[in-house]
């Protein structure tokens, strides 16, 4: 499902929400999480899961084409941990 299909689905399931408004809701939702992660904050959504960032340690990688070893610096990456309810749903 794409973002526009997702927006349409949201607009369809809430009677007082137009497509245009649903688009603002979806953008605000994901932008909020984006901003929080960039700021180093954790986002906890009860029953759904939590988003946070993790720091990847520096490592020696390899160029898959040439086989040369290259140093990969440590970096921060986004991480999502599904909540109990969501995990359960996937059983």
């Amino acid at each position, binding site marked *: *499902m*794409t*973002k526009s299909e*997702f927006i349409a*689905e*949201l607009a369809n*399931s*809430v009677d*007082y*929400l137009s497509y245009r*408004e649903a688009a*603002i*809701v*979806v953008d*605000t*939702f*994901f932008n*909020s*999480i*984006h901003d*929080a*992660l*960039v*700021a*180093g*904050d*954790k*986002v*906890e*959504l*009860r*029953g*759904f*899961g939590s*988003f946070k*960032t993790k720091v990847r340690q520096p490592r020696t990688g390899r160029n898959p084409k040439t086989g040369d070893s290259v140093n990969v610096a440590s*970096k*921060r*990456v*986004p*991480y*999502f941990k*599904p909540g109990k*309810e*969501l*995990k359960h*749903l*996937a*059983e």
Partner: protein
Amino acid sequence: MTKEDIVNRIWENMSLSKKQSAEVIDQLLVIIKDVLNDGERLKIGGFGVFEIRERKARMGRNPKTGEKAPIKQGETIKFKPGKTLKQAVASE
């Protein structure tokens, strides 16, 4: 940040009541769950992709006691961050 903070942001930016703002966010989360439950992946451009991945059965360990504990085969939710989000987070 919690769901409450996101609801407040919706409420401040739109002409919805507080109750409606909370309903809309709850509904948004329900739709994500339903989509994944149907086995479909959800792609949010710039943010990332949510999908269900199969998890192989393996031997795990109880981190408290160190005892071996089997992990059942099943499915798990995987979030793959998009390029924009990865770059924004990495550059901080």
